[in-house]
């Protein structure tokens, strides 16, 4: 095993840990907002670690750029969806309150 392989394995395992944390959070947390928090933070970090590990393993610059963009788009999409879902739910819970802010 070369040093790169060791680093790849470590990065993958750390990524798996964060994915497990995210899934457990989604399953166990009591309300939507804490679940959102658990999911959109932990899972993106996990994806980041796995992406870094795979970029190291594949070792091609073009693939590394693509993998970076995969992670970057996920960060953007995920944080936006976290915000939108939370806002959606708040408007469902308290009709009118979210509306005041927007208009």
């Amino acid at each position: 095993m070369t040093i790169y392989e060791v680093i790849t394995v470590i990065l993958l395992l750390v990524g798996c840990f964060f994915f497990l944390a995210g899934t457990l959070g989604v399953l166990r947390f009591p309300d939507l907002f804490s679940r959102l928090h658990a999911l959109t933070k932990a899972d993106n970090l996990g994806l980041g670690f796995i992406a870094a590990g795979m970029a190291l393993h594949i070792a091609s610059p073009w693939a590394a750029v693509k993998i970076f963009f995969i992670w970057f788009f996920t960060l953007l999409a995920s944080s936006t969806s976290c915000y939108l879902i939370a806002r959606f739910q708040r408007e469902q819970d308290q009709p009118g309150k979210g509306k005041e802010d927007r208009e």
Partner: protein
Amino acid sequence: MSILIDGLLAILAIYLALQSLLAPRLSQSVFLFFAFGLALALAWVRLGAVDVAITEAAIAAGFLGVLFLDALRDFSSTISEKHNNTEAIQSSASRKKIKTFLLPRLAFGVGLGLFLLISLEAIWQIPQGGGLTAAAESMLPESGVEHPVTAVLLNFRAYDTWLEIGVILLGLLAIFVTGGIKIYTKPDVVAKDPLLRQVILFFTPVLFLFGAFLLYIGKSGPGGAFQAAVLWGAIGILLHLGGKPVFAMIPRWVGQLVLIMGLGFFLLMGFVFMSGGATLFEYPKAYAGTLILIVETLAAISIAAALTAIYANLNQMKEEPKENESAN
């Protein structure tokens, strides 16, 4: 060892397919179907069919997802209006109702049995020696592209692809027929949320670029017109959801021209070369690559426009009865 992944994927896919049909609530079904699309895309990857995986990812994750959410909203309004507090009574009543419909169940069972028999027969008779793969591979240099799937879709079996574009257009026509054509009006929902606006502004060029990339890469690898079309269609849907309905903003004849462009150019080209002595959809060898790229681009634009129009129409058909009710 990798049989474990395949086994898990197979179990997941079949379980999700069953559950998305049998789930008691519609919202469960919709989101289980999304998970089913994901499992199916991964299964296609494991089977080595990356083209199909991209299509599955694009259609299941993007297009069908938003269509189903829209349908869910429609159903939820009917359900909450009609049976508000009578859920328990309703469910027991519907259970009794189902028991009386024995004949449809029997027919369904017989149909399912026949289908399974036919599938078994199909699996039994897998052609030895890879079927037509060798024939397709040997003709690859003459097709003008390097990727066998694209060669089959756009050159050897161009007739099928032409009909597929037609099927999507027919679906749109069916929606026109049921919903009326006066649909291209602006929705009153405009993206006032600053974050939503920014995200739509950011993802529109990204979707366009990646769609163009998939279209171009289809020449030499997995990708192609249909995958690009879903991504470009997603642009139209995003703009529609953000309060900028594309079809309401361009003149009507431009919209119609864009919708039929792919189908029309494909057919026109086929006839032009047929008049020169070739068979239908046979390309002259020297220009085959360029012509395929042009056909694919136009087809992708047409399909994208059709998908956008399908979503825009379905999304607004539901607004209408509500307005009528409030007017009454």
